[in-house]
């Protein structure tokens, strides 16, 4: 659906150059809910703005299915329509591209002086549609986001979640195939966040809408994304299926994200604060087990077989895309040999073992 190749974008600010997006290549398939996570300043907002050219990339190309390929080089943009020849990107093509991609924002960005109706009608006006057509479409969209009774309300009379629903309706007005979401739930309370995420998931399924979702909250990715890219300093450091990335995080930043969201990261705090975790000796290990072995009673088996004590300090189990993913922080006590054998046994059973500290 969207194929990004070798994208670069930098900003010059006060004499220094910030490389906001550096050599990013992504392949987003039709019907995906694709998450892009990273801390603030990682370049994810810039990246998503490059997709609809709110930011013009310095170089690189973006292919959008059904539209064509946009290639940027030295500040100029060129467009190759599907089955056509390359030409400079025209204003008209840019508008067409943008109408094919809805976008929602952290702060909703609704017009405060327009009613819900007029906000949603905004992208429909001046496009040759009759008043009756516009009204019918707005009502249809309001039903989709379940806000029909607020048609004459102003944004200041709506809650955050309702405002985001209006923004979603507005973004979908022209039947785009892609929805870009820039931290759409970051300003919402947990309840509203959940309902917006559920709505996005519904839209993804009902309309086969491809969603590119930017967030700094791992919980959001877990809730609805199928694929994820992790960004740091303008680069994508890791990408793939959410389950794979979460169960076997490779990059440090990904680990940090995964830990913070599962709660297992608290062990580092415990160690940092010199809590007497290891006072009695033993090896502190972290076990990550995926869908294939969640059901097995490995801990007690290891304990019996090798005569070690398995002291579970922290544990978490969550469902990712319907598959369970578990993690444990365990203090293994026993002879050095027994510990080593126990760990080897766990490894054999598809459990990822990571030694945090030897006591």
């Amino acid at each position, binding site marked *: 659906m969207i194929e990004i190749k070798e994208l670069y974008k930098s900003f010059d600010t006060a004499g220094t150059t910030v490389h906001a997006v550096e050599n990013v290549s992504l392949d987003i398939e039709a019907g995906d809910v694709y998450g892009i996570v990273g801390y603030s300043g990682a370049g994810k907002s810039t990246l998503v703005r490059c997709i609809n050219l709110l930011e013009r990339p310095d170089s690189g190309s973006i292919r959008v299915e059904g539209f064509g390929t946009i290639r940027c080089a030295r500040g100029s943009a060129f467009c190759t329509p599907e089955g056509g020849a390359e030409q400079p990107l025209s204003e008209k093509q840019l*508008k067409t591209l943008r109408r094919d991609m*809805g976008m929602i924002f952290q702060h909703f960005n609704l*017009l*405060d002086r*327009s009613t819900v109706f007029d906000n949603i009608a905004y992208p429909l006006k001046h496009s040759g549609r009759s008043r009756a057509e516009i009204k019918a479409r707005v009502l249809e969209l309001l039903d989709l986001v379940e806000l029909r009774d607020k048609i004459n309300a102003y944004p200041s009379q709506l809650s955050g979640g309702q405002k985001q629903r209006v923004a979603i309706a507005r973004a979908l007005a*022209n039947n785009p195939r892609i929805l870009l979401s820039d931290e759409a739930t970051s300003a919402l309370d947990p309840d509203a966040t959940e309902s917006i995420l559920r709505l996005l998931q519904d839209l993804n399924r009902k309309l086969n809408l491809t969603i590119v979702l930017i967030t700094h909250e791992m919980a959001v990715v877990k809730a609805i994304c199928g694929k994820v890219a992790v960004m740091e300093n303008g680069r994508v450091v890791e990408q793939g299926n959410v389950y794979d990335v979460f169960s076997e995080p490779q990059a440090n930043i990904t680990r940090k994200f995964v830990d913070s969201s599962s709660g297992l990261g608290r062990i580092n705090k415990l160690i940092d604060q010199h809590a007497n975790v290891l006072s009695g000796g033993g090896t502190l290990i972290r076990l990550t087990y995926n869908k294939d072995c969640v059901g097995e009673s490995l801990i007690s088996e290891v304990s019996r077989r090798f005569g070690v004590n398995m002291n579970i300090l922290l544990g978490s189990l969550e469902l990712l895309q319907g598959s369970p993913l578990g993690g444990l922080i365990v203090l293994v006590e026993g002879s050095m040999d027994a510990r080593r054998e126990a760990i080897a046994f766990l490894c054999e059973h598809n459990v990822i073992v990571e030694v945090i500290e030897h006591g």
Partner: protein
Amino acid sequence: MAEWLASIMPNVVDYGGKFWSSCQATMQMFLIAGGFTLVFGSIFGVLLTVTKKGGIAENRFLYVLVNTVTNVFRSIPFVILLIFLIPLTRAIVGTAIGVKGAIVPLVFGAVPFFTRQVEAALANVSPGKVEAAASMGSGKLGIIFRVYLHEAVPDLIRAVTITAISLIGLTTMAGAVGAGGIGSFAINYGQNLHHQDIVNVCVVVLLLFVSVIQGLGNYLSRRTTNRSLFQHKVETK
């Protein structure tokens, strides 16, 4: 009634006809110069907003030009501007005196002020709204009219109010150099002939005028904050 008026402000009653025509002259200057100011100030304010760095139609040359001209004319005291512009006024309208001659300097005096007010009002429109409009495929004109000017209405009304009030001040000064109006009436018939009642009445008339404008401005600006002035309800049946 007439007797009572004659007893508290005898000279105003004596010069009643002159007083009335002065009020009309002031009104004329105010409306004509105000109309031009509204148009040019809005255009320049929008130009500054869209051409500045990071604006939707970034253009360094235009920005620096409009910005510099605005600064220059804002920093010249109005009384000096009046004399300075006499040759230009003659060239444009054929005379430098009377109501006609006052319009040109009044416009030059008020436009830079209003331009800055419009620029400030538009700067209050969140860049996010502009970005959202762009993401929906709005072009430059669409963004100017449907986002910037639309969302800034309450602030623009405040800007018009402040500019209108300062324009009233300017018209009385123009009166000092032969433009007629309440200002010159107060000086020539009040101050110079030692008719304190004439000066007092002029003050009261101006005070009322300013109050009405300020009140109307406040009301409209409040009415349009977070909603449109006239709401049309859409039936969902």
